[in-house]
C-alpha cells in the first residue's frame, strides 16, 4: 500500500495509537511528535478529525469517569480500520527508510 495518509492525519492516528484521548491532548501530542512541523490550530484540527471520523478511521470513545477528564470533553479512539491504516503507513515508511539506508552516504555529499 502506497502512502495515502496526510501528515496531519498520520500524526493524529499515531497520537491515538497508545490510548484514547480528548481533543486538546491529541492536538498537543501531534505538535510534540511532529516537532511543530504539522501546524495545528483548533479549526484545522477539528477539520482533520471530522475527516478521519467520516472515513471511519477514528470514532468517539466512551468518556472515562475520571474527575480530571470530565472537563475535557469527548474522547476519541482508533477504529480497527484506523489501526490498520496506521500499520500500513508504518510499513510503508519503514520500507522507505530501509530503501534510503541502502542508498549510502552519497546523498549527503550532494547537499
Amino acid at each position, binding site marked *: 500500500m502506497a502512502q495515502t495518509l496526510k501528515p496531519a492525519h498520520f500524526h493524529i492516528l499515531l497520537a491515538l495509537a497508545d490510548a484514547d484521548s480528548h481533543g486538546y491532548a491529541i492536538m498537543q501530542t501531534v505538535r510534540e511528535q511532529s516537532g511543530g512541523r504539522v501546524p495545528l*490550530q483548533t*479549526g484545522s484540527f477539528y477539520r482533520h478529525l471530522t475527516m478521519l471520523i467520516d472515513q471511519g478511521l477514528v470514532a468517539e470513545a466512551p468518556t472515562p469517569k475520571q474527575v480530571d477528564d470530565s472537563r475535557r470533553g469527548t474522547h476519541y479512539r482508533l477504529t480497527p480500520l484506523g489501526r490498520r491504516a496506521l500499520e500500513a503507513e508504518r510499513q510503508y515508511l519503514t520500507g522507505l527508510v530501509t530503501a534510503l539506508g541502502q542508498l549510502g552516504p552519497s546523498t549527503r555529499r550532494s547537499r
Partner: protein
Amino acid sequence: MMATVEAPEWADTCYGMLLRVYPEAYRRRFAADMRRTFLYDLARVKARGGVAVLAFWIVTIAQAFWFGSAERRASSAGGPVFEPPGRPKMRLSLVGDVRYALRLLRRSPVFTLTAVLSLALGLAGSTVIFGLADALLFKAGPGIVDADRLVEIGRTTGGEGFDNTSAPVVRYLAAHTTTLERIAGTTFDPTPISLGAADGSERVFGQLVSAGYFEVLGVRPALGRFFHADEDRSADSHPVTVLTHRFWQERFGGDREIIGRTIRLNNTTFDVVGVAEAEFEGSTLIGTDLWVPIAMVGPIRGERGAVLLDSARAVWHTAVGRLKPGVSREVAAAELNALLETFRGDHPELPASHGIAVAPLGRVPAPVRLPFTAFIGVLFALTVGLLAVACSNVGGMLLARATARRREIATRLAVGASRGQIIAQLVTETVVLFLLSVVVAVPLAIWLMSLLQAALPALPVPLQLTLAMDLRSLAFVAGTAFVTGVIFGVVPARHVFRSDLSSALYGQSGTSTRQRLRVRHGLVVVQVALSLTMIITAALFVRTLLAAGTINPGFNVDRVDVVVLNTTLVRAEGQNGIALIDRVLERMRAIPGVEAIGYSRMIPLQGGGMGLGGVRIPEASETALQLLNDADWNTVSPDYFSVLEIPIVEGRAFSAADRDGQPLVAIVNETFARAAWPGESAVGRQFWQTDGGQDQGRPLQVVGVARDAKYRMVSEAQQPFIYVPAAQQPEAEFSVFIKHAEGRRPGNELRRAVAQVEPGLPVLLMQSLEDATAIGLAPQKIAAAVAGGVGVIGVLLAALGIYGLMAFVVAQRSREIALRMALGATIGQVRSMIHAQAARLALVGAVLGLAAAAGIGTVVQRLSLLIDVRAIDPVSFVGLSIALALVLFVASDVPARRAARTNPAATLKAE
C-alpha cells in the same frame, strides 16, 4: 498589545460567535469541545506575548471562515466533503475567491481607490499612534530583563504623588526590604557634565546610580564590569564610571583598551570600569552617555555632596527595584512604608507627610505618566476615530455593492452555490480590500512616523525614542485591518441573505431595502459625528496655539541666546562664582554682534520655579501672605531687565552697587506689590526673607517694581514674583542671556569665550531663548497637527459618505420622485426633500459629535493643555458645525439636483 488584555470569557464569547459559521449539525456535535480546545490553546499562546496572540487570533478567525464554510458546503451537498487526494478543495476555493475578489476590485477602480486610500489613512494614523504609545508606555527599554517585576520607588507627599526621595531613605530600604530582591537609587534626569579633553571641555550627560542599578534591571556589561558596592559607599570612594555602548563607540571609537583608562569629569579623574550592553541607556526615554555611582554626586552635581548623601531632607533621586516572584506592588509598598516608619524613629527630621510610592517601571517617569497616558489616549482616540470613519464609509460602499450584486448572488445560489461559499467569497473580497490598504498604509505610516519624529521639539537632553515600523506595529496594522475587514465583510453578506433573493432574480428590488438603509444611515451618522469631534478637537488646540502666540509673556525672546553654566563644576562658589561669570560676560561682550548680556538663575517658561524662602510682611493681610509665600524667586544680574526688556514700572533696576556687603534689596512684580501694599507704592518698603521656620528672617528693601510677566508657563494666571541681585544671594547655576544684533547670531564664539576664560567650565546648554521657551507648547503642537490632519480627512470622508448615501437614496426613490413630480411637486420641493433627509442624518450626527467633542475638550482642559480657550469653546463648536453643515450640504446637493432633473414621464414608463 490589545489582544493580551481580554478576559477568557470575552475570548470564549468571540469564538462561540465565530463557530456560527459552521453548519448547525456540526456545531451541535463539536462546538463545545472546540471551544474548550481553543481556550486551552489561547492560554498556551498567551505566554508567548502579544504578537503571538494576535497571529493566533488571525489564524483562528481565518480557519473558522474557511473550514466553517467548507463544512456548510459539505452538509448542503448531503454528505462528507469530497477530498481529492493531494490538493484539498478548500484551498482551491480560497485562491479562487481571492482571484475573483481582485478581478472585481479591478473592475471598479474608483471604488477601490477611494476605499483603499481612506482605509490606508485610518490604518496608518492609528498605527503611528500605536507605535508611539507602545514605545512610550508598554515596551521596556532595550537590555532590561523581566520588566514586569520591576518597580520605580519614590516619595509620596500626604499619601499622593510620586517624587524624588533622599539617599539615606533609599539606602535604608535597600538594606532592609524582604519583598524586593534588590533596590538601587537612580536620578531621573541625566546631569550635564564636563568631559575634559586636551582642547577644552565638552558637555556629556551622566546619570547617578547606586552600585546595584544594572543588576536590578538585569543589564549585562558589553565590556568590563559594573560598580562594586565599595565604589558607592561614601564621597571618598574611588571615582569610577561606566559608559553607554553608543558613547563608547562615538567618543572612543569602540576602543577595547578603554577599560582601566581614566577620563576627567568635572575636573575629577574617573576610572572607566565598564561599558554597558548595546542599546541600553537607562530605563526611561531620556538617554545618557555614562553612569557614575551616586556617592560621586559631589563632583558631578557641583553641590555639597555630603549633604545630599546624608540628609533625609534632601530629596533628589528615585530608585528602581525588582520584586521577588509572586510579590505584588501593593505588598511591597506596604512593607516599604512600614520600613520608612522605623527609619523615621531615628530620623525625626524626616517630614511627617513623606511616604513611599511604588509604581511599575515605565519609560515615562512615574510623576508625569498619568497625564502623558491621557494625552496619548486622546491622540489614539482621534486616529481610531478616523479609522472608524473610513471603515463605516467603506462599509456603506460595500452595502451598496452588495445590494447591486443581489442578482448575481441570487443567480449563483440558484445554480448550486452554498450560502457558506457566498459568504466566504464576500468576506474574502472585503478582507482583500483591507489587506490592499495595509500595503498602502505601511509606507504611509513609516512616512508619518518620520514626520512625527522630526516634529519632536529640540530637547537639551538625549531622547531615547525611536519610532519605527517594528513587528508589533506591523502586527497591529495587519491585525486591525483583518479584523475590521472580516466584520465589514460579514455585515453586507448577512444583509444579502436577509433579503428576499428570489425577487432579486426577477429584477425587483427587495423588501428589506429599508433595513439596509437603516444600517447605512447609522454609518453616515457615525461619520458625521466622528469627523465633527475631530475637527473641533483640532480647533481647540489651534486656538490654544494662537492664544499662546498672542499672549505677551512679558519679556523679549527675539535675538536672545541662552548659555547655561555651573561655576561649582570648576570649584568656584559664591562670590568666586559671580566673579568668574563676570569675566565670562566680559569676554562675551567683545564678540562682534553682541549687544547686551545679562544672567539669572532661572530661565522663564520652563515649567518650574525656584523658591528662596518665605515672605514676612507685618502690615500685609493673612490672605495676601499666603499668596506671597508661594511667590517664585529669581536671582538676576543688573542687566537682566534690559536684556529681556522687562520694564521697571516704578523705582529702579538693580545696579552694580547692589553687591555683597551692601544693604539687601529686591524688585517685586506688580502682582506682588498690589497684594502686599494695596493702593500704595511698594518702592522703599521692606519685607523679610525667612527660611520658613520661626526666625525673623532678614529684611529686603524693595527698590523697584517690574511689569508682570509669565514665569513658569504661558497659560498661568498672574503670579507674585521676587527678583534679588545674584551678587547678594549667589547661586551655583547661571543662565546667561546674550542679545545680538539682527543677523549676527554668535554661535560657537560663545562656547569659545567660555573656554578662553576657564577651559574646564562646561557649557551645559546653548539654545535660542525662543526654542528654550517653546518646549512647553510641544504637546499642543503635536495634538493640533494630529487632530487637524485626521479631522480634515474625516470631514472629506463624511462628505463622501453622505454623497454616496444620498445618490443611492435618489436612485432608490426615483419612482416615488417621478410620481410626486407628475402630481405637481416643483423642482425646488424635490431638492429640499432630499436635502431634508440628509439634514436629519447630519443633525443626529452633529449632536453626537458635539457631545463627544465636549468630552474630549473637558479631558484636555483637565490636562491643562488649553490656554485661554474653554473646553466647550463657542467659536470652535458653533463655527465648525456650520462649516461641516456647508460641506455636507454641497455633498448632498449633487444627488438632490439629480433628483430634481428626474423626467417623470420617462422614469414611470421605464418602471
